[in-house]
């Protein structure tokens, strides 16, 4: 009885030890789908990339699953958004994955937030202000101008972990950057027409885009980050609607939209459901179509 269990176990353990010895595709795990999409642009088929979170779920509160542990266990490279966006779900999974090569601080770990400048870094941090991010607003990737920077960081990291293919990664990055630049020119042209438009968002997850194109942020539907709308707060917002011409209410796809819909109906202001990640809506299939769809929804 004992032997029948132990022999397959020993075989499996030896196999796992031996597995890294034979050449295999680099396994990249990303926390969010948008990062996976950028990795695909840089690495094409040379790596296997898996995103843990679903793009249509709240990125702050991804529900952890043991299958994530299985993916992290086999990863050669883990790329995260950082700025504490993953703090509520990733650390125990990483701990349980027993994979020393993707722990923070190791070569197989990349925190993209270290490559950008974050806004709204709070001067003092208190949870009386809701679900605050001490490092600043973590939704920095919702800005077409920052994506090449992230792609470059990913390219550099891939070249470091897998130096044999460095030339190919660089070539792909150059192609990607050129395509992105062309695409971005058309997004810029469309979005610049929204300059000075006043908007209300559900959560401050579009700030980087709004600031980039000079839209005016007039408030959020949630009273504090992570706290659902209250009637008192909605009454305050209604005053803003009464004394300003609000162009849009920006609603994400994962929070309840009752309050946004109520405001939209009451003041005749359009509610736009903006995709925040690849997979948030059907049309956002990759990093290009994510921004295509974002721009289309904002400008149609």
């Amino acid at each position, binding site marked *: 009885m004992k032997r029948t269990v132990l022999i397959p176990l020993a075989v499996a353990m030896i196999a796992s030890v031996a597995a890294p010895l034979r050449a295999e595709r680099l396994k990249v795990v990303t926390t969010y789908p948008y990062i996976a999409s950028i990795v695909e642009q840089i690495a094409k088929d040379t790596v296997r990339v898996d995103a843990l979170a679903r793009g249509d779920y709240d990125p702050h509160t991804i529900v952890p699953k*043991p*299958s994530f542990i*299985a993916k992290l266990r086999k990863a050669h490279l883990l790329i995260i958004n950082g700025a504490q966006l993953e703090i509520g779900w990733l650390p125990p999974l990483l701990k*349980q994955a027993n*994979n*020393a090569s993707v722990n923070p601080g190791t070569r197989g770990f990349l925190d993209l937030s270290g490559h950008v400048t974050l806004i*709204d870094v709070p001067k003092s941090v208190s949870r009386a202000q809701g679900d605050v991010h001490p490092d600043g607003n973590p939704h920095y990737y919702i800005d077409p101008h920052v994506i090449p920077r992230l792609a470059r960081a990913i390219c550099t990291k891939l070249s470091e972990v897998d130096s044999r293919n460095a030339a190919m990664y660089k070539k792909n990055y150059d192609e990607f950057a050129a395509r992105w630049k062309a695409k971005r020119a058309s997004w810029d042209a469309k979005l610049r027409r929204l300059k000075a438009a006043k908007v209300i968002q559900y959560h401050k997850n579009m700030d980087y885009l709004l600031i980039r194109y000079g839209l005016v942020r007039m408030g959020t539907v949630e009273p504090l980050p992570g706290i659902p709308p209250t009637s008192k707060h909605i009454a305050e917002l209604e005053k803003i609607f009464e004394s300003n011409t609000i162009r849009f209410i920006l609603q994400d796809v994962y929070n309840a939209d009752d309050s946004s819909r109520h405001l939209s109906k009451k003041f005749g202001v359009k509610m736009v459901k903006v995709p925040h990640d690849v997979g948030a809506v059907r049309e956002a299939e990759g990093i290009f179509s994510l921004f295509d769809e974002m721009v289309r929804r904002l400008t149609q």
Partner: protein
Amino acid sequence: MKRFTVILLVFIFSVAIPSLRGQDGPDAPKEPAQKELRDDSPADLPNYDDDDATLEPRNESKDPGNGSPDEPENYDDEERGAARTAPKRDAQSMKEGTTSSPFSQSQFVPDISFVLDASYNHRDRDNEIYKTQLRPGFIQSMSGEAEHEHVAPNAVMRGFNFNYAELTLYSVVDPYFDLFAAIELTTAKVLIEEAYFCTTSLPFGFQLKTGKFLSSFGRINEQHAHNWDFYDAPLVYEAFFGGDLNEVGVRATWVAPLDFYLMIGAEALQGANAASFGATGFADHNETMRVRDSDDPNLGVGYIKTSFDNGDLTVYMGASGAYGRSRINHGVDQAGVAGTAIAAHSHVLGADLTLKYQFDSKRYLALQTEYLYRFMDGAYYAKNETDIVEEYALVKRQSGLYAQLVGKFAMRWRAGIRYDLLAVNDIKLDGIKESLPESLPRYSAMVDFNATEFSRFRLQYNYDHSMYVPRDGSFASRPNHEVVLQVNITIGAHGAHAF
């Protein structure tokens, strides 16, 4: 031990408090927490347009790979002075760097959190009657004659209860280990709930844990009470482990490099659990009977856990086994007390299954069930009327299970029902089956409101049909109705959710 804990606490606070002050600085402007509703002064974003340039050697040369921005210079050459904020901050931090103590340790303070758990309990039995109740054959009594003082769960009296507070500390130790400690504080005592260090850099999917920790036996055992879906532990865990299996020892786990989750673990533990194990021998008051201490370590635990997803459904299964020697002494060493004791070899086997269906980002439905079986083989000691210890051959076969269905049906609300059962209760003394009640159930329902991840209010109702009182040499059923209003509050470090 107590003194050590006090010293530890004093040390923690002496490190933490000055460091917190040091971070804010006495001259840091105290800004009131202001609600920012309107923000029409657009902050500047850096211009990343120079990134469009193809990758030049400067980028490939010196990225340390630690997530630090590779080229701060990139921010400099832009049209509209967009990088104003970043250099300003840098200058400020440099200034702080020159004024602060060169020996400051504040960055090394561990993650600290503090949990408070309190409840208001109501029961349709007086405390005096409740204290005499028991679950025959499972909790507190072998065959009815040993009535010594009760421990949890019967310790929860009616009215306000301060259940516990828990101080947790976590930090990476060095490149090889991390350390976690949970110090449980009650109004009367300080306990090390857990304190262990763990490897972080073993290859091939292995991990070692050493210290005092909650065993990974079964599904719920490893969870701290504040992560439970109900106010109380499942009956079968109360019966077999006195709540949980929390031991000093070593644990090794291995995660298989497969496309689905497969984890195998083994633990060597001291085996001090008072409900099923125990290493300390005993003798009666005049030494006519003596049972030696068992060999240490006394308890071995092993388990295998696996999980896979099918669309939005996650399936999680596990099988666990524990084998150890039992030395359980209920007053057999005291003169004039109707004491009993057990010396046996004990097995506890467990199987668990969790099915969790995620409807969307905020809502799920989870079914969780565990079945535990206990087999004890050894000797039972009981005193007769003349205070003389008599020995019987003991064989215990007992089992229990729970099944719970918990739904999160809105962002802040959850509700659940649970069915507990102590099922088989087969105890033979010298081959003769004891007359004990079988199938002891408890029914629970709960609803909880989570204002944020840090504050939870829970209302729970139990119909506890597992309670009995001794009567005429047998047992009479005494079911209880219980209502509990529980509050659980956390401050400090952000505890992430496990599955």
